């Protein structure tokens, strides 16, 4: 690295984490610029983590006003209505986050991210999107992939007791420790569109096992985590088809959701019972985040972004799914599907 050493202040503040990832990684973090679109409890957790880690800057985009749901899982929003009235989620979170680490520049950007041009994105190193439709996610991901600079792209979603992270680092070079040595590695990622287009039938062997095991309802519930990605897809597609805002699906929609699930399964030649109605029902009736899951997903996402920026350690690829019901946090690598196992 060129001669900019960490300041004395940084060394004192970051001492404990420098002992984990090294001074070089810390320097890289201090130069990284993060963009976040859509703030929920999970994203609030992520922002807290990334600000504490000492990134260069964090830009928040969310023009929505405070709702009861927002207050339920987002600890960055003060409880006093006099304080939060009239401000957007981004503005309120920005104020709180600044306090966590005065060395990080936290700011707000207004507008609809999917309408921003590619130029805008070139200012950043990492983009995290939440609370938006499939279409928006695809659009933003495409913009990230258009730039000569490799932007890291993440989506994150938490509903009820489930959480999911998607990662696209395009072409990522990094190092990691193997036994006593440092090894250089390279990973190639699928785009968001490619990832969600993977035929369900070719998803990892687990899915097929579920199919065979599904006669035993109990065993089936244990496989929940592996199929969360399908579930989120069904809901997202429902939202898209019905023109709903993300997360706006409710219990009245359940019949419609189930109908769509049937159609999708048929289209994918997948037995319907692969996706338990019970779980869909749970996610539809209670789309709210569960704070412990926010902490877990926000923590994992935070660590992933730190890994990507520092170029140290195996990053997640491509999805990470967690369901508090069984406690498993599983990494789904969709590229193994393409080898047609």
């Amino acid at each position, binding site marked *: 690295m060129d001669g900019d050493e960490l300041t004395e202040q940084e060394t004192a503040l970051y001492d*404990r*984490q420098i002992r984990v990832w090294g001074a070089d990684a810390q320097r890289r973090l201090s130069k990284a610029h993060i963009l976040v679109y859509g703030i929920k409890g999970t994203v609030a957790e992520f922002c807290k983590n990334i600000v504490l880690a000492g990134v260069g800057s964090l830009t928040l985009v969310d023009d929505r006003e405070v709702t009861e749901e927002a207050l339920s899982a987002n600890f960055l929003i003060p409880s006093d209505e006099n304080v939060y009235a009239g401000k957007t989620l981004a503005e309120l979170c920005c104020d709180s986050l600044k306090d966590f680490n005065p060395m990080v520049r936290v700011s707000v950007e207004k507008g609809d991210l999917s309408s921003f041009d590619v130029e805008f994105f070139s200012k950043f190193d990492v983009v995290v999107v939440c609370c938006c439709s499939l279409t928006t996610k695809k659009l933003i991901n495409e913009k990230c992939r258009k730039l000569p600079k490799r932007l890291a792209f993440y989506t994150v979603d938490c509903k009820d007791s489930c959480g999911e992270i998607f990662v696209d680092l395009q072409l990522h070079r990094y190092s990691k420790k193997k036994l006593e040595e440092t090894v250089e590695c390279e990973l190639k990622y699928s785009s968001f569109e490619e990832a969600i287009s993977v035929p369900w039938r070719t998803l990892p062997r687990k899915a097929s096992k579920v199919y065979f095991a599904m006669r035993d309802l109990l065993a089936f519930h244990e496989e929940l985590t592996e199929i969360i990605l399908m579930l989120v897809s069904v809901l997202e597609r429902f939202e898209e088809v019905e023109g709903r805002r993300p997360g706006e699906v409710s219990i009245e929609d359940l019949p419609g959701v189930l109908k769509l699930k049937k159609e999708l399964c048929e289209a994918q030649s997948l037995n319907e019972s692969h996706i338990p109605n019970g779980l869909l029902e749970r996610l539809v009736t209670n789309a709210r985040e569960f704070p412990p899951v926010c902490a877990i997903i926000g923590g994992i996402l935070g660590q992933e972004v730190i890994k990507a920026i520092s170029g140290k350690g195996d990053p997640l690829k491509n999805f990470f799914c967690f369901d508090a019901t069984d406690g498993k946090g599983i990494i789904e690598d969709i590229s193994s599907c393409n080898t047609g196992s």
Partner: protein
Amino acid sequence: MASENHFSAIKGAKVLMVGAGGIGCELLKTLALSGFQDIHIIDMDTIEVSNLNRQFLFRQSHVGQSKAKVARDAVLKFRPHISITPYHANVKGPDFDVDFFKQFNVVLNGLDNLDARRHVNRLCLAAEVPLVESGTTGFLGQVTVHIKGKTECYECQPKPAPKTYPVCTITSTPSKFVHCIVWAKDLLFAKLFGDKNQENDLNVRSGDAASSSDHVEDVFERKNDEDIEQYGRRIYDHVFGYNIGIALSNEETWKNRNRPKPIYYRDIFDNEPTQQNGNVDRNCATNDPSSVSAMASVGMKNPQDVWSLKENSRIFLEALKLFFMKREKEIGNLTFDKDDQLAVEFVTAAANIRASSFGIALHNLFEAKGIAGNIVHAVATTNAIIAGLIVIEAIKVLKNDTKSYRFSPYCLKSLCRMTYCLEHPSKKMLLMPVEPFEPNKSCYVCSETPLSLEINTNRAKLRDIIEKVVKSKLGMSSPSIMHGTEILYETGDDLDEDLLASYAAKADKVLSELNCPVVGGTMLTVNDLYQELRCNINIKHREEFDEEKEPDGIVLSGWTQAPSSVENNGTKSVDNAGSTSEGSTMEAEKNDEIEIVPGKKRKLSEVSEDVIPSNAEETKGKEKLEVLNGDDDDDLVMLDDGDSGADKKIRYQ
């Protein structure tokens, strides 16, 4: 999740958190968000700058204030109507007795030392309150649930013992940098700046006849008007030159070892004028002893640089000088504190010079400080993840309270032991649940199994049992020892002088010579006043003990023995602990945070039958733990580094 079922269990719960640090801050925040309304939190520490990278409820302006109190205030900002009761106190204190613990539905630990964890474990067992334990180090974290009678208690499985080093390795034959650090910190620093009355092994040489110890004692004393520079050079030459020379004269020691090189001032500095050795003016401006720094004085800025032998020598002499010139009043009372910059500089430099002598690689200040201060590396994300897992388990515990044992597909399943491991996810699992284990029937803490103690009852004194067995190995801080109805020893604030004196006298007696003699076949009953732990010890007389393997002349069995971590030949041991600013705990804390020690597997039978498919296999070997769900690929999962590397290779091809 926030369904009615959970909500009522959470709303009415009274929760105790022990620890308001890294895990504590994340935990308090998540509990509050999850709907908990009555939280009590105990923490004896105050806020330091190095906490701020992860203990996000604290700000720079809070440094020095109580963690428990500040954490409470911060959380009330976004949840003003819940009740949080902070205690700025030590959980081991008398206020937190069994009755105190009994008022809670669940206890959540966010501690950083083994001693306090054992204490809380015992109180939870006595009060019959479920305990959720946790720990994190770097990218590794774990959560375990302990319910009396149903699962293991925290002490059912052995915990790694603190790392200790044989005295001769420290004083004569170091082979690793940490040995040099221990020497610099516990011997040299202590000798020069610490309590003069303390025993110090600095001039002990193994296998050497006692030299005239009066003579050598004088070497370290600064004569009345002795020029500080001269004193510094004298000490330097003595410890790095003369002492090494003496050690070399004992041929036996070096038969199979590399000989160290004595280092003298003149070799390094070539008789340069000493004024070159630092600009005291740089330190004159400040009267604040804590900002005095040899590095600043000598113009070396970067704690990540490895200094040359000459630079280390400069720092050594400069630090010594600064102690005498700027902090003279403290000399004789100092203990090493990792947050004392000058002390860290001194110890780093001294350790490096010694390392140089013995051909051991030198380290920079940053690394040396970590070793000397037993610093645990930590990040916010791991703590946040673990806090989330703690709350999930806590909710399960609370729901079990309502006796809804019937399995419902949409409610949280049975309790798990959760492990988070970022760098070596087991196959694809970053977060891994494992069934909790049944209580260990031979755990003396929760199963009241008697212990057996082999000791020479004709030579050992009662004090040996009190200190080495009851207080140290059994971790009882306020013990009483009874032989039948006779009280041999007890502690307590309300004991009168005479009684204390008589106990002291008894303690100094040889076991077989006590009024009520303690001999082979005797059974002693040991109790702890606050932990409400009771334990029986059967005494067996034994004449001889192996000097190397059993240097204390004591063998305790039936006590879950921690895996031995004493290096090489174990004569009297020295450990790299003691003088941290975090209190009197004796561990290299890195070790006690996580012990993923696979114990004997005992499944929780009532849980498995109707919930988990019966293909859950038996463990294939000691090293493996079983995954909750018996899927064939993931049945047996390694928690050590073994397989995961290989698996990864296959994945990424």
